[in-house]
Every structure is written in C-alpha cells, then in structure tokens.
C-alpha cells in the first residue's frame, strides 16, 4: 500500500483532472439523490393539494437535475479516463526506460518474464484501477452515505429501519466477498494446474506419442478436470447466494418500512410520499454498497501490481558510470587480476581467482566444458556484470573508469545465443553500427560466411526476419550475429561459442577473415571445440571457474593433461559435420 502510494508523483501532471473527476461525480450523485425527495414533494405537496403549477415546476426541476447529472457523469468519465490513461502511459514509459538501462544482474534479479508482465498486464491493471478509483469508488460510497443522509432529512421517521438493514447488509456483503475470494482462489489453483497440464501436453506431444502415453496423460487430466469442476461448482453455488440474499434483506427492510410507515400515516405523523422516497433511497443504498465493494476488490487487486512496478522503478542500477569517466577509446590491452564472481550473493562462485594478461591485437582462445564459466568471464568486459573481487583492466586502467558507452562502443560481442530482431538483415547489422554503407554491410556478411545465404534470398539484406528469426537455421543466425559484431570494427572482438552450428569449412573461412580483417583488434574466441581455438596466440583452459592452464596449443599439449584429454576426445575424426 505504502509502496503503491509512491506512484502518486505520476499523477502530478494530471492532478487537475484527478481532482475534477471525483468532483464531477459528486455532482452526478447529488442530482441522483435529490430525485426521491422531489418525488416526495410532488406527492405530498403537489398531488395532495391539487397544485398543478407546483407539480410542473418540480417536474422541471427533475429534468434539470437529470441534465446536470449527465454533465457531471460525462465530465467525470472524461477526466478520469484522461488521468488514468496518461498516468499509465507515463509510468509505462518510465518503467521501460528503467528496465532498458538495467544491468544484467538487475535483470536476472527480476527475470525477463516478470519484467514483461510488469510492462504489460501490471500497467493495464493499474490503469483500470485508477479509472475505477476516480469514477466508481467515489460514486459507490457517496451513493451509500448520501442516501442514508437523505433518508435522515426526508424520511427521518423511517430512519430506524436503516439501523437494522444497513449493518446486516454490510456484514453479508463483507462476509461473502471474503468467502468468494477464498473459494475462487481454490478454483484458480486447480485452474493453473490444468493450464500447465494442457500446455505441457501440447509442447510435449511428440514425446507422448513416441512413448505411447496417451492413456497416462488422459488419466492425469481427468483427475484435474474433475477436481476443477467440483471446486468450481461449490464456489459458484455459494457465490450465487449473495445476490438473492441482499435483495431479500433490502426487500424485508422495505416491508418493515411500509409497516412502520402505515402506522405513522395512520397517526398523521407522515404522508405517503415519505414512504415512497424511503423505498427509493433503500435501493440506492444497496446499489452503492455493492458497487463500493466491487471497486474495493478491483483496487485491492491492483495494489500488488503497483507494488511490483515500484520495486522495479526503485531498483538501483548496479552498473553506472563513475565520476569523470575516460572517454578515449582503448587500444585493447586486457588484464584480469584475481577475478572472482558469483551470480548471487551467497551463491557458488562461477569465476574463481582468474588472472591473465592479453596484449592488444592478440587472439585468445578460451576452452572448457559447458558451465565452466567461459561466457561469464567474457561478460565482465562490456561490464554486463561487475566482478566481486579482483580487477579487470583495459589499457592498464580499471574497467570502471571508462565511460560505459565508450567501453561498449569499443567491443564487438557475438553472444552464445544469437538473438536477432524482427527487422531486415540490414537493420540487424545496423544494430552493430548505425551509419554504415552497403559495402561495409556486405563486407561484414562476407567475413562471417553469411553472404552465401543472404545472396540467395530474394530481397537479400532487405530480407525481414521473423520474431526470434525462426525462419533461419541455427548456423545462419550465428553467422548474422557475428556480422553484427564485425561491422563495428571493434577494438575488442568477443565470439562466445558462435560457431557451434557452423560447419567446419565455413568456420575455417571465418577464422581467416577475422585474422585478415581485424589484425589490430584483441580477439577472444570462446569454444568447446579445439579446432576453433587451436591457432590462438594464447589459449586459456577453464575448468569449474578456474583458469587451470594457459599457453599456445603446442605448449598446452605438453603441459596440461586436461587439455590433452579434450584434444584426444576431439581429434582428427572427432570433427563436426553439419550443413
């Protein structure tokens, strides 16, 4: 609740609308509330005295109040919408900017899926809640309280009925709302289970068919389906009591009002019009109560959304520029000094005390098993993460001294997962460098052996990729991701296992292209294949987060048993055959 309140600053620009909307709603409600009183006046003064003039003027008053209510209602709706939509749009914009600037660790902390939910459904929930808050949340309670007050003014003699009806009504609504919440949470639980079952059956249909487990799956589903039906029936049957029950309470109140009214009319204390006004107010009280509790639930639902959004907005970005950062592009000398790192605070370290030194322009091969920490080590260079202990130096300066933009500008990174965007191939390459000529694009495509398939496409580099580039093979995606890194002509080039799906012959060509195109760049090549790194100036062998050996291929064959073992399992006939 407290957290949600922090979003109020996004309301400031629209504070005028936000105040105007409920004020206009007050206008509408008062006009609605006046009506039964006018009715009472018409009956008890107009009809009773046969005063047509009075009736006509009162009738005019009624029509006027209806129009005023209309103006109030429409204005309220307009301002409420303006406030809510603008508010939500602004929060969304800020949230997106915050997330886009997040460091890897920030993103890991929240997980991407949750961040997407924050930006989409959480914001929408919030927008709906604000509209409700400004419209119905004012209308409901106001109607409820207003009607009670008007009864006190117009039909004070019958007020005692309210003393019984209102508490009973309020308690039933509260109890049922709670009960409903409980029952439907139980339903939702099974519903989630069922959705998971269905989703898994669709995703794993090949496995189910291959193992012939139809009967097994159906059996499991029937259980969930049965439970869901049972819980749902109970829930809806219980919930179904509320409407008839509240109607009954109000109607019984009405019967008593007529009874007490009849006695008081008999004794000439009140006139008939008062009873009629009372009946109308009673209806309004019911309406007001139900819509208030409805809105309360809506708003209660929005609070967790608001809290999640605030948590993201307030998350401190753990990778930022230092004071007066270096803005000169580095030459490419890299040094790791006793670097240790773990993804979580108490977690197992992924990098343990790693030290090495690389001269500008060298080619470095990094080899090790899956999960040994190779990729993590590379992520320290563009400061996707900062080290926990030790230092990373570029040109003998701690990496944190560099301006982030300058640093990342100097690095061409082709990550393990070749993530491409749903735009043209050209657009994807321009991600690497914005103002490039067609010739540069072609050179980059050539260097990564991507040209050979791009040329075959009808619209060549204008070819638009589908989302997730599902229309390309794994090898094709990797080649494009490499082109994107090449086109930057980076000082430091990092290829993180980017040739795993590229055939051996093309890989060879790519290696040659890198050597001739980037003689002065420092090149890091991460791979689990010996053939990809064999010719490097220096090979780093990583096992379980530790640098266990380094040197050239020949040196390592002599010095490292582990390296030899890798080589043995992969030599000669162990190559990879692919497209």
């Amino acid at each position, binding site marked *: 609740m407290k957290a949600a309140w922090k979003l109020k600053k996004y309301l400031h620009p629209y504070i005028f609308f936000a105040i105007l909307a409920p004020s206009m709603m007050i206008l*509408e409600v008062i*006009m609605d509330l006046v009506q039964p009183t006018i009715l009472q006046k*018409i*009956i008890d003064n107009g009809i009773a005295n*046969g005063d047509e003039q009075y009736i006509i003027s*009162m009738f005019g008053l009624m*029509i006027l109040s209806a129009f005023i*209510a209309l103006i109030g*209602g429409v204005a309220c709706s*307009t301002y409420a919408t303006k406030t*809510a*939509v603008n508010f939500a*749009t602004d929060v969304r*914009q800020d949230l997106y900017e915050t997330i886009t600037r997040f460091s890897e660790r920030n993103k890991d902390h929240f997980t*991407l899926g949750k*961040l997407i939910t924050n930006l989409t459904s959480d914001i929408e929930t919030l927008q709906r809640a604000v509209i409700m808050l400004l419209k119905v949340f004012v209308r409901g309670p106001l109607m409820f309280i207003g009607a009670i007050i008007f009864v006190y003014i117009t039909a004070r003699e019958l007020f005692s009925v309210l003393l019984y009806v209102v508490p009973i009504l309020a308690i039933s609504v509260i109890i049922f709302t709670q009960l*409903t*919440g409980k029952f439907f*949470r139980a339903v939702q639980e099974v519903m989630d289970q069922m959705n*998971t079952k*269905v*989703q*898994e059956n*669709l*995703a794993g*249909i090949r496995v189910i068919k291959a*193992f012939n487990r*139809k009967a*097994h799956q159906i059996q499991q*589903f029937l259980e969930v*389906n049965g439970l869901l*039906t049972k819980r749902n029936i109970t829930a*809806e049957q219980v919930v179904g009591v509320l409407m*008839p*029950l509240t109607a*009954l309470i109000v*109607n019984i109140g009405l*019967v008593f009002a007529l*009874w007490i009214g*009849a006695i008081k*009319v008999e004794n000439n204390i009140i006139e*008939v019009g008062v009873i009629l006004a009372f009946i109308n107010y009673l209806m309004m009280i019911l309406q007001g109560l*139900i819509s208030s*509790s*409805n809105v309360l639930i809506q708003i209660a639902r929005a609070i967790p959304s608001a809290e999640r959004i605030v948590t993201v907005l307030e998350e401190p970005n753990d990778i930022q520029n230092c004071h007066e950062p270096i803005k000169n592009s580095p030459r490419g000398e890299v040094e790791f000094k006793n670097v240790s790192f773990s993804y979580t605070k108490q977690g197992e370290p992924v990098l343990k005390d790693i030290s090495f030194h690389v001269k500008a322009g060298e080619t470095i091969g990094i080899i090790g098993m899956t999960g040994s920490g190779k990729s993590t080590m590379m992520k320290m260079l563009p400061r996707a993460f900062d080290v926990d202990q030790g230092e990373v130096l570029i040109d003998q300066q701690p990496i944190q001294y560099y301006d982030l933009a300058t640093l*990342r*500008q100097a690095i061409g*990174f082709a*990550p393990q997962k070749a993530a491409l*965007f749903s735009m043209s191939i050209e657009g994807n390459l321009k991600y690497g460098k914005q103002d490039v000529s067609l010739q540069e694009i072609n050179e980059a495509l050539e260097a990564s052996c991507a040209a050979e398939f791009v040329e075959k496409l009808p619209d060549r580099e204008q070819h638009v990729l589908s989302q997730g580039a599902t229309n390309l*093979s794994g090898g094709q995606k990797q080649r494009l991701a490499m082109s994107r890194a090449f086109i930057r002509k980076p000082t430091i080039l990092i290829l993180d296992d980017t040739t795993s799906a590229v055939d051996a012959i093309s890989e060879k060509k790519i290696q040659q292209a890198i050597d001739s195109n980037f003689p002065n760049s420092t090149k890091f090549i991460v791979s689990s294949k010996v*053939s990809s790194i064999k010719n490097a100036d220096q090979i780093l062998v990583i096992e379980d987060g530790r640098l266990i050996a380094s040197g050239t291929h020949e040196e390592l064959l002599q010095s490292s048993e582990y390296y030899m073992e*890798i080589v043995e*399992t992969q030599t000669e*006939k*162990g*190559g*990879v*055959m*692919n497209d």
Partner: protein
Amino acid sequence: MTNEPKQGTRTGLERNHGFRGPVVKPKDQKAALSRIWSYLRKQRIGIVLSTLFVILSSILSLLGPLYIGIIIDDYIIPGDLSGTVRMLILLGAIYLASSIFMWLQTFVMVRVSLKTIQRLRKELFEKIQRLPLSVFDKRQSGDLMSRMTNDIDNLHMALSQSIIQIVSSLFTIIGTAIAMFYMNWILAIVSLIIIPLVVYVTKQIIKRSSVNYKARQRDLGQLNGYIEETISNANIITLFGREQETIEQFKKANEQLRTSALKAEMVSGFLPPINNFMNNLGIGFIIGVGALLAVNELVTVGVIAAFVTYSRQFFRPINQLSNLLNTFQSAIAGAERVFEILDEQEEVRDVQDAIAKDQFDGDVEFRNVEFYYNADKPILKNISFHAKAGETIALVGPTGSGKTTIIQLLNRFYDAKQGQIMIDGEDSTSYQLDNLRDHIGVVLQDTYLFSGTVRENIRYGKLSATDEQVEKAAKIAYAHNFIKYLPQGYDTMLASGGMNISQGQRQLIAIARAILEDPDILILDEATSSVDTMTEVHIQKGLNNLMKGRTSFVIAHRLKTIENADQIFVIKDGTILEKGNHETLMMKKGFYANLQNQLQVQ
C-alpha cells in the same frame, strides 16, 4: 500475450457493465447452437428446472411493485392497518420465494453448465491426444491452448450466466410492460416512449467505441510485441549500447497507444452516465405526468409508486440485453473454434485384425518410400533400404535433407505417401499403432520433459519401473552424475519443459528415459547435440551398450559415432546418395569421403 482484461478471481458481485471490444460473430450460429445443445441434452432435467425457476422468480419480482401500489392505495391511504399487515406478510412471502427461486436457478444452472463443460474439456483433451502431428505443425500451440482455456471458459460463463440473464431479462421486460398497461395505459406509454431512445443511443456508442477499441487493441498488440522482443533480447541492447534508440522507438509506440486508448476509453466511459440520464429522464416523466394525472384523479399515488419501481426494473435489462447477446455470441464463436478441433481428422486408425507383438526382431525395410507435405515439394524420394535385426544404422546428411523424416515415418508420426515400410516382414501399417510405438524408443532432437520430479520424468519410459531401475537407467545414460548434485537429487522438481536445467542435462534425462523403456528398435535423433564433447564420450559408452543387440537408427553430427555403424546412409535432398559402411564409403571417394577428408585437413 492476451490483451483482454483478465478476469481474475470473481466476486459474484459483477454485473455485465462495460464491454470488451469488438464482438466476434459465429460463422454458423445455428449449427453451433444445436451442437452445444447435444452436449446440454444430458442435463435437460436441470435445464427445465432452472428455466422454471427463472420464470417463477421473474414473475414474483414483478408482483412486488404491483403489491406495493395496491397496499398504498387500498390499505395505507384508507387507513386499514390490519389489512396492511396482512398484505405485508404476503408481500414478505413473495420476496422470500423470489429470492429462493433466484438462488435455485443459479444452483441448478451452475451444475448443468460445469458438467457440460467438464465433458467438453475431456473430449477436447482426448481428441488432442489422438490428433496426428501434422495438426500440431499446422496450428500454433498458443492457438490450441486458447481454445482449450479461454474459449471453453467463455462458453461456461455464457451457459451459467448469460442464458439465465437473457431469459430473465426478456421475461422482466415483457412482464413489466404487461403490468404497466394493466395498471395505467397512459403512464405505460409515457414510460415506453423512452425505450427507442435508449436503444438508439446505446447502439451509437457501442458502434463508435468498437471502432476505437479495435484501434486500441491494435496499438496495444504492437506495443506488447515490441516489449516482448526488446526485453527478451535486452542483453543485445546493452552490449551494443542501443538503449536510447530503443527507448525512443518505444516512446513512439507508447504515444500512439496513449492517443488511441484515450479515445477508446473515453467513448465507452460515456455509456454509464448516459444510461443513468435516460433512467432519470424516464422516472422524471413518469412522476411528472403521473402527478398531473393524479391531480385529475386519473391515476392513484400507489400506481405512481409502482411505476417508479418498474421503470427501475425495466431499464436495466434493456441496457444489458445487447451486451448479454454480444457475450453470448462471442461464446458461441468460441464454441465453434472448439468444435473445429473436435472435427479434425484423427491419427491413422488401426486396420482390422491389426497385429500386436510382444517383441520385435527389428528387421526394418523401406521400399520405394515417398513423402511430402505438399505434393510439389517432395521431402523423401524413392527411399529404399534394408536394416537387418540388430544393426546400427547411421543417417548422415545436411540439415533439411530428410534424415529426421525417415525416422518419423518409422514410428509412424507420419505415414508414407508412396511405398512401404516393412517391420519384421510385415507392413508397418498392419501393426497396432500403440503396439508399434511401445517397442520403438526415441530420443528426440528437441527433447521435452514434463513438470514433476526427475524420477517421474525418467520413469516416463516405463511407468512400472522401480526406483532402482530408474537410477540404473540414469547411470547408464551418465545422468546420475549431475542428478545426485541437484538440490533434492532424483526428487528435484523440474519446471515445464525442464527449463530449470541445462539443455545438455535435459538430453541426458531423455536418454535415461529411453534406456528405461528398453525398446526393440532405438532411434537417436541428435541425442547428444547439446552435451559437451567430454560428457558425450561417456554417454556414448552407455549408448553403445544400449544399441547392442537391437536395431538402432542414429542421426549424429559427430563422425566418430557414425564410423562404427554397420551401415551408413548419406541422405541429400530426400534421396539416399551413398550407402555402405565407413570403409566402403571412404573407398568410394564420394560425398562422404569428401566430408571426412575436409575435416581431416584442419
């Protein structure tokens, strides 16, 4: 990503106010309705009862205002106190009965609807299990998913609520009109005069706002698509320092949504106050005209009172009705989508007297097999080969050459368009499909694991396996080594798809699963592609043990695995280019030898 406002936990207090964008119209409403009826028929006693309760409660709630009018005119105003009390007891009884029937109609209808839905869901699920893979290729899983969940939920809402509400609204409208005319025809006309206005204005607003809603949905869809893509690829944006451009582009889409959302919400927001206005106007006219008539003694005060209550009862159903019909129509359209799946052609049925064997020798022969999805794009062309029982067959060739298709024909994921596949000398189609699949073990390229423990996932290969057998299989697959380090070992819960472990680990579990199945024919489709080379060497030993004595088909990109095969088929563009063992193929100096040599060079 769904853009519809999600209905979370319901409260039981909601009424159908507001609306949710454009209405989806069913294609053939009549056919769909009669089909829904065929499901509902089993519950017809419930339906008859419920309808009866709806009618009763509607009539009783109409009697209320009528009695109030009578009580005021004939008992209170004349001062008949004992008569008043008598009538009030009757009125109380009417209200009580009305509430009870109102609850009973829900009580019965909820059961009718949910039982029907349960059956429909069961049929749909069973159907999905029987559908051929081509259906899953053709339709996105999100689409199937939404039919199974959203569409069915909507139908439930329509059955359990909309029907009752539509019936009761109709009854209330007609009943009220009759009661009004019965009491006073002049006031009745005054009340009804406003109806065309209500209907017209509501229609106009809905028409306008559905245009705006479409625009809003479009913009929202675009924005959400952009969010999904950029957030999932956020690391690229960071690495390439493209935050500013990405944010600016987001801003454009966000602003576009601001404009269209403002329009859409604004117009639809007018509906409640305008409805309220019509209500007030109607009641104002009734009171005004009624009072003038009362002065001239053409109408009594009690009648005015009754009319005021009636007109409140009257306008709500009119406002609701068009909304209800829309919801109902959308639900019917959803039901149609469900039926569409139920009508899909099922997987091949077994022939009469299909064979079931306890054990297969594993002799496999392809005779001139052809396969295609589109006749003009053949995938396999005239494939013939013979794998003798116990042999290991390696399939080699570029991606997309048809290797995987050959394997999928073998376990009848698809059936050959031409030619025959013989297993143990019999056409594969003459076996019972279930029997055949029970004896063919597969480790697929993109393996899938289910949510549940590691143990349950391995046991999937043989449901009756003991814990010891499960662990033994895991040891052979070299999976035991990592499983024992998982937080709860074999009882560690896996997420759907096994997303909480690495792809390599998923493959190891899938191998263990196949080992446990102990099939007569084994298929390994790139089974170790995501396992690193060192681990692969170990698994290979396990797999070699497994392959011994049973016919095995192996697709692998590592040449070492291929070299030891009894037969190697080089597949290219859907045909067998070369056939033989490693030595003969090397001697031949063809495609295979060329590939091998190129790799030797480096």
